[in-house]
């Protein structure tokens, strides 16, 4: 059915979209900062020249990290504790962008509930809880 007038857009969708959009754009600047620091830092345990060379020559993940100055496979805790390294800033920036869905689903769920769409509000809450569990499982088991 076609209608020449514009209809209003649901607030729950707009809130969901805006939160993800701005947090993702923000995370891009963090990733950009991490990239610059990766190349200019001289005292890093994670040298970007070494990593790039290893990746391009086809080394696997284990060989790359165990052959680096950190001599261990990094996890999210490593990146948090070494947040001043370019590589860590870049990974945390990407993680921050992914994290954006969590506040977005809970805010959207609130507005879906208020607009009398309880099934979708509950579905959004469950989707958020599963994503949090996945993130926490990674952090706690690391």
């Amino acid at each position, binding site marked *: 059915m076609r209608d020449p007038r514009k209809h209003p857009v649901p607030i729950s969708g707009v809130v969901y979209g805006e939160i993800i959009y701005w947090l993702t*754009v923000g995370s891009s600047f963090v990733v950009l900062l991490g990239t610059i620091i990766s190349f200019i830092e001289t005292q890093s345990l994670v040298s970007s*020249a070494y990593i790039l060379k290893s990746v391009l020559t086809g080394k*696997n993940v284990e060989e790359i990290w165990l052959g680096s100055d950190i001599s261990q496979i990094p*996890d999210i805790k490593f990146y948090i504790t070494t947040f001043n390294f370019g590589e860590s800033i870049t990974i945390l920036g990407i*993680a921050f962008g992914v994290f954006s869905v969590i506040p977005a689903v809970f805010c959207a769920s609130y507005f879906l509930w208020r607009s009398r769409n309880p099934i*979708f509000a509950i579905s959004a809450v469950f*989707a958020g809880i599963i994503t949090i569990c*996945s993130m926490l499982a990674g*952090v706690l088991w690391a």
Partner: protein
Amino acid sequence: MKNIKSLPELFTLIVATVACYLFIETQINLSSLDSIGDLSSIDLIVLSFLLSVLIAVIAVIAGVGGGVIFTPILLAFTSIDTLIIRSTGLVVAMFSGLVSTGPLMRKGLADVKLVFLGALPIIVGGMLGSLSAIYLAKHLGETSDAIVRLLLGLLLIFIAVMFIFSGKNMEYPAARPKDSLAMRLKLRHSYWEDSLKSTISYKAIHIKMAVFLFLVVGFTGGFFGLGGGWAVVPVLNLVMSIPLKVSTASSGVLLALGNAAAIWPYINAGALIGVVAAPWMLGQVVGGIIGAHILASVKASIVRNILITMLLASSLKLIGRGLETLLGVEIPII
């Protein structure tokens, strides 16, 4: 250009990215870095960014994850470790969908109810698919995997053929008999179709079947590590009678949400390497914003043609990989 000026955040991001790469190209001692042929590592990073922008624009318009394009290219043309390619592929599959969520929701092209209707079955199906893949790999080996890949490839060709022969009817599906569950869930909506300068209203149908199919899509996505973009659009458009543009927009948003849970194990396994993933992530963000604005004004028939091409390309890849494993031969083009 007009769009870029009206989006200061996009303009700032493009300028900052160009300045960053110019700085690295001119100020960093390139002799300490490895190279491939005439290209230095920095050149490869800049090329990765540009390719990522292009992939993101196509992915957002077609409603598929960019991983469908990214992963085969890198697997075919580089010697980079497959785990690193898959983790970076997940970033590629996710970020264009994440950043395009804003413009698509703002314009009413993506439907938040459809997103949350599909989110749970896709996430649960994805988890079941991953667990089944691990179980089958342990007990049945690669042959069963190859057979399912082959069948999946044939299914995609069937879906592509349906899109070809259903023609314009599926761009703006006609009103169908009412679905009582859809009525109770208030699954009806409208969006402004810029190319027609009018508002298009639609009502969803076949909700129970769609929820079951989302579960299947999630399962196959988790099982094969494919992402589900190739199938979410057909479920929304062909099964639920949602207009094609809303289907592609909602598919991208849904995939980004579905993949958000999958990235953490890769980060904790050290498989996501920042300096490699960064240009791809930045390209997806820039291309995702551009793609979302193009989708609003592009004709639905163009979206349909891009989607058919993507479906056929994915099916060729799947059939090729299935035959490679079953027959023990290498098919170089695929």
